[in-house]
């Protein structure tokens, strides 16, 4: 479970998050939507402490994480996976090596066990036949699926997705979304920042609409997409449709 309380963040003078409160329950799929610059990616990065924030608190599994405590942050990160827009696979490592790097280096798992787990998750994202390939040999969609397997191999309690399909060619988006749908079905806790409204409607348990650093409105996909209460939400949805 992830709990965010009164989170505020400034980049220099720019107030990008103006008091965010959000609870993500176990097995819940929360999709954050909003225009560019609304602060949605920054919020996601704050949950993983890739961005430091000035006010508020983030609780992971009920524990308040101290931003100054590197050890605690590292421990927390090993429980919360992250998938990036630009994949960020390690180019000097094979696909399997990418996937087992976390378990072996962070959890101290033995190589054989890690390989077994790595292969299990590569199979899950449909790339077991690519384990010896290097990232440069893969398509964008395949790279992102490896990145998802890399996050899964840490067996995290939640995974954060930062616009996972935004850097993909249109014809490659589907395969990544399919993997994510299956994860949702398996009960993985997910927080997803995306522009894929169709996907949000289909997979989200809850949709959160953000604008100018605040959560404007949230609810089930039906509530937010079909009966938006706030004018800002209505105008955003009319623009993206």
């Amino acid at each position: 479970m992830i709990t965010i309380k009164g989170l505020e963040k400034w980049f220099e003078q720019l107030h990008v998050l103006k008091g965010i409160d959000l609870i993500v329950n176990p097995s819940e799929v929360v999709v954050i939507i909003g225009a560019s610059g609304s602060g949605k990616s920054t919020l996601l990065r704050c949950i993983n402490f890739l961005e430091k924030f000035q006010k508020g608190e983030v609780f992971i599994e009920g524990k308040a994480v101290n931003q100054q405590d590197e050890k605690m942050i590292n421990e927390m990160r090993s429980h919360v996976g992250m998938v990036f827009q630009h994949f960020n696979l390690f180019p000097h490592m094979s696909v399997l090596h990418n996937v087992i790097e976390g378990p072996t280096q962070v959890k101290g798992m033995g190589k054989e066990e890690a390989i077994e787990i790595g292969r299990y998750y590569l199979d899950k994202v449909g790339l077991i036949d690519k384990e010896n390939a290097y990232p440069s040999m893969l398509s964008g969609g395949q790279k992102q699926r490896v990145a998802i397997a890399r996050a899964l191999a840490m067996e995290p309690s939640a995974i954060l997705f930062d616009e996972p399909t935004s850097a993909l060619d249109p014809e490659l988006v589907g395969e990544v979304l399919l993997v994510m749908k299956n994860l949702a079905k398996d009960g993985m806790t997910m927080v997803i920042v995306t522009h894929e409204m169709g996907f949000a409607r289909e997979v989200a348990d809850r949709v959160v609409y953000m604008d100018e650093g605040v959560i404007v409105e949230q609810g089930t996909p039906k509530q937010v997409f079909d009966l938006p209460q706030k004018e800002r939400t209505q105008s955003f949805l009319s623009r993206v449709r």
Partner: protein
Amino acid sequence: MTYDFRALIDFFPYFLPAAWLTIVVSFFGIALGAVLGLLTAFARISSKPVFNLPSRFYIFVIRGTPLLLQILFLYYSLRSIFNFEAMTSAIVALGVHNGAYIAEIFRGAIQSIAVGQMEAARSLGMTYRKAMVRIVLPQAFKRAIPSLGNQFIIALKDSSLASAITIKELLLKAQQLGASNFKMMEMLTIAAFFYLFYTSIFTWLFHKIETKLSVSGSA
């Protein structure tokens, strides 16, 4: 004036001890430079002023003054303080000089690795140090290799400046022999041959390393 081709062969053996000295000065100078360079690069990218400021000052001074001046300066100061031999001073000077340049090569290479690589590693729960060692440095080293090769070749040729502090390496040997047998051009030709031989080996070696690394996964 005639050019004596025979002298090239006749005097060749006299150069062998000098050729060895050039190797020794260059090898230890480059090794010291590489270690200093890597440490300085880390200090340079550190956000802590205790590390950052001295490394910037070091690079500022070394890049802003001639190597010959540095060799002479270290020779006189190290001799009077630690009673160092000329040979040690030459190695230290070459190492300190190249350390500054190699630091900038490493710094550039490390910073050229996308921020996302560090973030991906950290998001798995790795410490900064582990992410650096496992993820960033292997990629940075690979990217630094062409520039490092270049710098090593420069360092090898720069070892000739150690002649100014009585190190009988190739250039000083050529000058001394030339002054006594009046075949200066021939002697300089022999010295040039050795430098070309050494730099060819470097070029070949670095080419090998580059191709080998580009086969095993590309960046």
